[in-house]
């Protein structure tokens, strides 16, 4: 399948890569099907690219790799709604907001994107424990020269 995206131009992907959400993400209507683009995986960035809306693309971080102490607690039944739970199949990503000054980059620890890679179902789940909605993460990413080239 092909898609002409805003950020990546024309991309090709297979049907099996599509992750289906039971509802659109809050505030971002009209899209329930996404693929995860991991071209910036060396920086721990991932892109949640909508298949339904080519202009809808969110940046995500793999926070577990940056802060091993991150411990999102979500309602068990909400994870079960993504299909049979095998811990190794559950992947978690956190949506990033990047303002003009990249050093003020924040990551949403309160409501991670949770994906069951076996069933390819995903959801944005709200954690029950005390996690920040806008956590300043830039200093933990260890970019050279304060981040820019």
């Amino acid at each position, binding site marked *: 399948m092909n898609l002409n995206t805003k950020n990546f131009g024309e991309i090709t992907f297979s049907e099996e890569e599509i992750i289906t959400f039971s509802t659109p993400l809050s*505030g*971002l209507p009209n899209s329930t099907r996404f693929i995860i683009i991991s071209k910036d995986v060396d920086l721990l960035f991932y892109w949640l690219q909508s298949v339904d809306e080519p202009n809808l*693309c969110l*940046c995500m971080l793999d926070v577990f790799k940056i802060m091993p102490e991150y411990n999102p607690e979500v309602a068990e*039944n909400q994870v079960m709604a993504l299909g049979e739970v095998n811990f190794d199949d559950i992947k978690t990503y956190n949506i*990033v907001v*990047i303002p003009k000054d990249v050093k003020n980059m924040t990551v*949403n620890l309160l409501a991670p994107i949770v994906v069951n890679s076996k069933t390819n179902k995903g959801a944005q789940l709200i954690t029950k424990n005390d996690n920040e909605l806008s956590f300043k993460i830039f200093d933990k990413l260890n970019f050279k020269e304060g981040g820019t080239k």
Partner: protein
Amino acid sequence: MLALTRKKGESIIINDDIEIVILGVSKDQVKLGIVAPKEIPVHRKEIYDLIQSENEQALNVDIDIINSLKK
């Protein structure tokens, strides 16, 4: 908006599969019990609004900024 009057212990049904029970009332607080299928997310509105606004802001990420971080 539909307005219904309910007493403690009574409930309303939405769409055949969501039940909202009035568990208790005291002064200006109401305690609700919600019975819904597990795939239906239920949130306090104020948290939902915050996440919605955060998602909307995330939409404006400039990919060039991420590219500039490389190296």
